[in-house]
């Protein structure tokens, strides 16, 4: 591509977000005075308060071990599987506490899809990977499953690449495709929220670019929270960025403010790459 100021056909604002101008979305996920302990003595999250807007991408950044994944895994109560954990404070989604004793964790997880660092397809076909949770729920109607597979794969920008080999093993896919398959699987149940924990850290730059473009598309429909140790990625894909250090929320703001004009010197040091 030659670089000139010659204009291409485009509509202003199309594709690009530009500086955020629209009125802020009502807060969707609220973290309130949240403390978290892996056992009664080891506290890893301290007094967290943050509001995550609907249909935006919110990035958690910070040095490794600062508690990003722990907070993320609290949002869908994945940490419940660990013995001895304890929390104080609350997390609400749409005003309802996720720790409400009357709430079934299964129904919470239906509203939340999760994508991990290492893509973890089941040792099954591409097709079965996507419909797995539906089958578990007893939904086996062929036409319905076909519909879910196509919608999910299209949603994950993978359909065109795999539509002719749906019955083949998921392990035949490239790393980037596997990760997009995991995203397809995560959106098969039409969740409202997508949690992503370093979804690109095992991918090359091209595959990473595809996932980032996909995230940009997905936020039209989903509320996305992404943990990333790649600051440029946070800058590229997110609308809000939260910087954590040693289990504390140091700064949380519009992404362009965090990267262009952070208020806290620790944030500035971290995003400038001269931390510690």
């Amino acid at each position, binding site marked *: 591509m*030659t670089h000139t100021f010659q204009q291409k056909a485009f509509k202003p604002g199309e594709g690009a977000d530009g500086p955020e101008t629209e009125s802020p979305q009502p807060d969707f996920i609220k973290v309130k005075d949240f403390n978290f302990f892996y056992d009664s003595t080891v506290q890893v999250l301290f007094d967290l308060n943050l509001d995550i807007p609907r249909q935006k991408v919110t990035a958690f950044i910070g040095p490794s071990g600062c508690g990003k994944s722990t907070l993320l895994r609290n949002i869908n109560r994945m940490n419940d599987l660990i013995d001895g954990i304890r929390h104080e404070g609350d997390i609400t989604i749409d005003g309802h506490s996720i720790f409400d004793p009357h709430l079934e964790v299964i129904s919470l997880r239906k509203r939340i899809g999760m994508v991990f660092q290492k893509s973890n397809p089941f040792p099954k076909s591409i097709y079965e990977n996507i419909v797995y949770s539906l089958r578990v729920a007893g939904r086996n109607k062929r036409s319905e499953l076909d519909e879910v597979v196509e919608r999910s794969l299209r949603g994950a920008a993978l359909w065109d690449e795999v539509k002719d080999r749906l019955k083949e093993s998921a392990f035949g896919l490239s790393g980037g495709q596997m990760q997009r398959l995991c995203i397809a699987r995560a959106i098969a149940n039409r969740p409202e929220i997508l949690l992503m924990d370093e979804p690109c850290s095992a991918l090359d730059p091209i595959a990473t670019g595809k996932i980032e473009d996909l995230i*940009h598309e997905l936020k039209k429909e989903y509320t996305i929270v992404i943990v990333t140790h790649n600051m440029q990625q946070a800058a590229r894909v997110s609308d809000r960025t939260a910087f954590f250090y040693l289990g504390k929320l140091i700064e949380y703001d519009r992404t362009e403010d965090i*990267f*262009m004009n952070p208020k806290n010197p620790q944030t500035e040091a971290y995003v400038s790459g001269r931390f510690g």
Partner: protein
Amino acid sequence: MARFFQSELDELRTKIVRMAELAATAVENALRSLYDLDADAARRVREDDDILDKLEVEIDAAANRYISLRAPVAGDMRLVTVALKASHELERIGDEASSIAKRVLRMCRQDAVVDVSEIRRIGEPALGLIRDSIDCLVQGDAERAAAIPRGDKEIDEIHRASYGDYIARISAEPEKAPAYIELIFISKSLERIGDHATNIAVETIYLVEGEDIRHTDRTKRSKQ
């Protein structure tokens, strides 16, 4: 593969092109307001300068944002830095047009009818040079851009050569000296506009070829 944020560069391009058109039009309108001694037209040139100032600020903000959030490299980075510099040159061209218009307003108040043929002699090539340099920038035409410094040198010479003419006119019509002094300043503004055209041309060459020819032999050669 076009990334989702690529269109932000297109928006930056659009703003530069719009600013370039406005800057060239400002010079043209300022000159016409002089030829017609039209105070209303001169006033409009001064008012329109606000749009250029505003665009410069917008381009700065968009370019800084792009650098901070998109980490551009290679051609993308050159495009952004050239946008920053070109917007500054265009803003300065707008300032010169505005300054010409201010002097036209003064001349309108003096009500002195003077011969402006010296200004026509420098104004037409200066306007032409600005239009050329903008064209090169927009089209990414480094070859034509390389010829701009030569045109600028010619304008410098026309400007310098006009001193004698102005002295002769002031001696012949001393009562019109204030108006002729305004014309000397207007001539100086047009000469500066040629400098800005050259700077835009140099930026165009950097944009297209990645080579910075400022303060090099290539610049000297291109003036010959």
